[in-house]
């Protein structure tokens, strides 16, 4: 099945569910047409987040996922600008993406999941 995943929760607040969903869908050989970071989801892209060593770092997990499956992690430009996260501050794998790109991906998807 073809999925689009919209992540609208920040890195401290439940976006682990979104990460786990993406990992599991890919492991089960579903297709992820697009992963789009919208609203507070844009925080996940910030490479300057420096979590204490005994805590999980979701930004790194997202980058690892993007590298293993050759995915682009699209970040809504309006959302990231409002939160002070410029593209040169994005962690590896993240790139600015327009709402138009999201709409085009949603058109191709069988299911759109928003977490």
């Amino acid at each position, binding site marked *: 099945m073809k999925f689009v995943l*919209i992540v*609208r929760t920040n890195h401290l607040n439940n976006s682990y569910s979104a990460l786990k969903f993406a990992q599991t869908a890919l492991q089960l050989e579903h297709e992820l047409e697009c992963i789009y970071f*919208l*609203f*507070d989801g844009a925080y996940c892209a910030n490479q300057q987040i420096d979590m204490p060593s005994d805590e999980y770092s979701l930004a790194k997990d997202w980058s690892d996922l993007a590298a293993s499956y050759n995915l682009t992690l699209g970040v809504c430009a*309006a*959302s990231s600008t*409002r939160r002070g996260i410029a593209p040169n501050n994005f962690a590896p794998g993240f790139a600015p993406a327009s*709402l*138009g790109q999201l*709409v085009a991906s*949603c*058109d191709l998807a069988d299911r*759109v999941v*928003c977490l």
Partner: protein
Amino acid sequence: MKKYLFILRQAPYSSYQNLEAIETALALATFMQKVSLLFIENGVLQLLRDQNANLIRHKQFTQAYAGLNLFDIKDVFVSNTALNQFGLRKEDLNSNITIINNSQIATLMQQNDIVITI
């Protein structure tokens, strides 16, 4: 073309995502997508008339709900249950909003392809 339903369940200025959601809904409508809005729980407070968010240094965005038909967003719904919980009547709200009950909400969710809950 897909059908998008935004479900807004937070009080208007409790989170910036409310403003961003309406901004996104309007943008999707300009991409010729079918967009509907549903207000439930605390979200009904977004529909109250005569708000002045400038007093709390927040952009006043809720007046946009009165002009949604300019963007071809004609389906704007509010939960009957939530209105009753806050003791609100139709006259208290911005215009052009349809009041629906819980079973109609279930139908609405089934009719849309993409549901984004804020």
